[in-house]
């Protein structure tokens, strides 16, 4: 236990555990056991010790790619593909990149998979730790802010090429709506209002959602839109994996609503995946969007979303 200190008298001084301190698990680790933090490998870390160019380590580590999130009626949906690559090699076919961070929020990570998963673990414990110490959960804004802090903490690794970027979404109990937050490696936090995607396939996924997405769709339709977006990302980005019908590996899909976080079972995800693939048998580029939309003041999708 790194947190105990043995004084010069040989006795144990449990100081850090008993000090009033903060309710933040990350801050507690920084004081008690800093070696457990994901960002322990800073600028002076192992990546640069052998004199190799910065980033050469990163090239050999598995990277996870595309995550999409889209707001739906009464919540938000997040989906991620299952592929982890290192260079041109597929390192894992069934990696999970979308996780339950707590009862009313979900997090997906793109970038170096190992550090990303550690970041998620730390974030999960951070949220639970706060709730247990304080007796109530953080607000959604508080959770998003905390995640920004964790991302900021990894900036040393990011500068060495060990980049991790999360996508965070949750159900806001105050407004009854889903909210999405994106981040950059400097710890910047940006709220996205309809949909967003991160990772190497994100540009293709976002383009796809731009045409398919509509506000306040029911959860099922939003899931389908996300599946289409991931299929399009896999279609154009080698680092993103499409649905593997032979091995029955489908994107991880989760919905966060007033009922809490729910990850779709493999069977349910398989149903959506098959729907998408069957549609592509007829239209390989996916469902076409109408070229000329209905002429109304608010366009064919209805009113612009309120901010």
């Amino acid at each position: 236990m790194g947190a105990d200190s043995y004084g010069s008298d040989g006795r144990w001084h449990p100081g850090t555990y008993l000090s009033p301190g903060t309710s933040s698990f990350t801050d507690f680790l920084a004081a008690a056991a800093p070696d457990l933090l994901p960002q322990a490998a800073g600028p002076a870390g192992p990546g640069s010790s052998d004199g190799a160019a910065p980033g050469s380590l990163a090239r050999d580590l598995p990277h996870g790619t595309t995550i999409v999130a889209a707001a739906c009626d009464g919540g938000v949906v997040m989906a991620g593909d299952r592929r982890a690559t290192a260079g041109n090699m597929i390192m894992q076919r069934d990696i999970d990149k979308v996780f339950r961070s707590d009862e009313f929020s979900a997090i997906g990570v793109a970038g170096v998979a190992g550090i990303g998963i550690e970041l998620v673990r730390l974030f999960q414990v951070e949220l639970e730790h706060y709730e247990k110490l304080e007796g109530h959960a953080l607000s959604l804004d508080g959770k998003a802010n905390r995640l920004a802090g964790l991302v900021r903490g990894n900036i040393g690794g990011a500068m060495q090429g060990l980049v991790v970027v999360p996508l965070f979404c949750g159900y806001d109990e105050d407004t009854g709506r889903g909210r999405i937050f994106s981040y950059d490696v400097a710890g910047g936090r940006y709220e996205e209002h309809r949909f967003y995607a991160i990772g190497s396939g994100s540009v293709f996924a976002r383009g796809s959602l731009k045409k398919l997405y509509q506000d306040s769709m029911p959860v099922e339709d939003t899931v389908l839109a996300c599946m289409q977006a991931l299929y399009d990302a896999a279609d154009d980005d080698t680092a993103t994996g499409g649905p593997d019908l032979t091995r029955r590996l489908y994107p991880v899909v989760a919905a966060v609503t007033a009922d809490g976080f729910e990850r779709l079972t493999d069977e349910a995800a398989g149903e959506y995946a098959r729907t998408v693939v069957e549609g592509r048998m007829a239209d390989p580029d996916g469902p076409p969007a109408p070229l000329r939309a209905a002429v109304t003041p608010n366009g064919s999708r209805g009113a612009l979303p309120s901010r």
Partner: protein
Amino acid sequence: MPFYVSPEQAMKDKADYARKAITRIRSGVVIACDAGILFIAPNPSRALRKFSEIYDRIAFAAVGRYNEFENLRKAGVRFADMTGFQYDRQDVTARGLANWYAQLLGTIFTDSNKPYEVEIVVAEVGKTADDDQLYRITFDGSVADEHGFVVIGGQADQVTAVLKDQYRDGMTLEGAFTVAIAALGSQSNGERQEVTAAQLEVALLDRTRPHRTFRRLTGARLEALLAGVIGGRRTEAIAGQQADQAAESADAPDDESAGEAGETEGAPGTPESTN
């Protein structure tokens, strides 16, 4: 200290001090049943809690000086989250936590000028009733592995006697609740008052829940349990303790902080301060 005090005397003084402080406060009961592990204590405060979640299947119960056991509670949560993060969630056990608390309290007892005036229980609910674990840790760091039920604080002997008589393995939640209320009520010899849900703090480590098993029983659920207490027996005896101990506290040598709204006795002479 200007004069020499023998170590035996110093330790005995500390132990007497802590023991006396703990006997003065209201008892709490931790009792195992088929549904899991139940925690009951009188507590009129809505903000200050005696029972808390430590980890998925582990809970913490304490009586005594509030700021001291609150410190211990937070330290325990930190220890558990640290262990679970470093290793895995299933590697956090009540036994490990109880041993750690024993070290902690033992160090505090020996090294500090004043021992912690607390008595704590660490409980872990198992998949089956046979796997339930209850550990009592006292102010000097002694750990005891208990079976079935634990009484902490107050006139523990009287309450334990009632529980020993009426407790059975495999009782239902309602049965365990009834027995515990009766046992807590056995201490009083003061005025009779109706016990309401607002005056009790009740929590449960629910065996059947998948991950985090700790739940507070409040509102309608607690009312239903109270209504089911056999024979509708008035358990005002528990509340009667408040009046007793408020009177007793006039003799207390040290000043219990006014912030302990839900704890121990109120300021001497002002029983209405315990809301």
